[in-house]
């Protein structure tokens, strides 16, 4: 589903690479947690996958799309196949919960009927039924993040990338968000989650990829995370 082969990303030649010859293979329907301290290269890795950044060298293939052969004009099509969730939610503040989720469908030209059918179902999945008409600022952080997740999965992507989705949340709300991600994964979506929350990693018991100084320090199935390791 996701294949990285000796991928290097250098922003500034004087500072050395942010990612240094990273190789990673993620199977379909897998749930992978990427951990690492700030500045380790986690976010760079995700930005390469969404093609917000371009790799300096190496090969990236996601869902059968070879990024070397991807034209700029096809980037929107790529992003439609990948759901993305951000630490700061990135919701539209002047639109309701329903409209925020519908937005992702409007962009791809879905009909009004399609939108009215799909959005409530997805809001149900993320446990936000009945809050369709709320504005984002009327919601808690956890609820906002679940709106963002609903928006990311409403087009039924094969892959969901979540960049520190719990970073701004208290433990209870963070766990709500993680539970939704697990649910989505059970439905068959590949999930790539970055976090530096040790508790979440330990509770989830999933494959953990640790990045340190731009390199993969460890890659273990059902691992527990020890930041000092």
């Amino acid at each position, binding site marked *: 589903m996701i294949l990285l082969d000796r991928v290097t990303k250098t922003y500034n030649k004087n500072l050395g690479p942010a990612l240094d010859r990273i190789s990673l293979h993620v199977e379909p329907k897998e749930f992978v947690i990427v951990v690492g301290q700030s500045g380790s290269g986690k976010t760079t890795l995700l930005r390469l996958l969404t093609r917000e950044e371009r790799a300096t060298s190496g090969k990236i293939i996601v869902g059968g799309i070879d990024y070397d052969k991807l034209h*700029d004009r096809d980037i929107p099509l790529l992003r439609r196949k990948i759901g993305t969730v951000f630490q700061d939610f990135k919701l539209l503040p002047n639109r309701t919960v329903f409209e925020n989720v519908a937005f992702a469908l409007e962009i791809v030209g879905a009909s009004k009927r399609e939108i009215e059918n799909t959005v409530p179902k997805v809001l149900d999945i993320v446990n936000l039924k009945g809050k369709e008409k709320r504005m984002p600022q009327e919601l808690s952080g956890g609820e906002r993040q679940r709106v963002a997740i609903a*928006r990311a999965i409403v087009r039924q992507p094969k892959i969901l990338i979540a960049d520190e989705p719990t970073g701004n949340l208290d433990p209870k709300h963070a766990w709500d968000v993680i539970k939704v991600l697990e649910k989505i994964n059970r439905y068959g979506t590949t999930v790539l989650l970055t976090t530096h929350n040790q508790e979440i990693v330990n509770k989830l018991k999933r494959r953990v990829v640790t990045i340190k100084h731009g390199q993969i320090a460890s890659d273990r199935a059902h691992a527990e995370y020890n930041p000092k390791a």
Partner: protein
Amino acid sequence: MKRKFITLFRIVRTGGVNFVRGLWLALAAVAIMVITLTIILFSIVANATFGHTVDQIANQVDVSVFLQDSVTDAQAQQFVSAIRKQADVKRVDYLTKQQAQEAFVQQNGGNQSLQTAIVETGNPIPATIHVYPRDLNQIGAINKFLTTKQYQALQTSDSPSYNGDRKKAIDNITHATNILRQIGIAAVIIFAVISVLIIFNTIQMAIFNRRDEIQIMRLLGATTSYIRGPFVVETIIYGILSAAISTLLVNAVFVTASGSLQATSFGLLDISYSQQFFQGHYWLLLAMQLTLGILIGAASSVIATRRYLKFKTPKK
């Protein structure tokens, strides 16, 4: 196909909503566009008015050929048909001695003593041929033809003659028209550039205001045209609005000033014709204004968004 239609509809609707929301921001852009389009409209009307005046005066310019009394009617007719064959001649009117006298009397109807004198002297007015040139600049060629030896013999000593003062008036107007046309073109270009820059600025501000939304759209996989579309629609609305305002404005000027316009005349200039021209071509001018407004609006927003909506995937 259906999706494309839905998308187009959404783009237009978003553009409309954004226009209404950003009305204050749009005001400067619309105002300058109204000025630009009004100048263009005035230039066109003024140009038509000057052209019309020149034509009118030019129609009155003719070369008069006076025939000697000894010339027979057959000779005169032969001469007339020879003149008609000239390429530069638009029209030829032949007046016999009798007709020329009648015309003269008619022209000087108020002058009783002059009329009496003419009758008493037994009609001193010569038979006359009026030659109207196609183009005023060809008067010289016509003159040359008329003064060939063969034809000069038929004419009186003061023939041929043409009204030089009118030629001079036409030259003056033509000259003034050319200058005004140049000023008009310069003004149009200057104001068009200014309005493009102001629309540029407006769109850039609108992009800045909506940068979060644009970023989110980008991350969710919106195409460039989906993001750009509403901005283009918004500026097209500016164009349509400005075209309508400027046309109505000029119309209002003509309606309120129509009385005084008819009373005024700058020398030979036929001012009332400008109103006539404007109202006669009202729909055509409105269509032209709309086209120009839409073009200026769309072009500036396409350029403005091109700079800011590029995919930033640098290869460092």
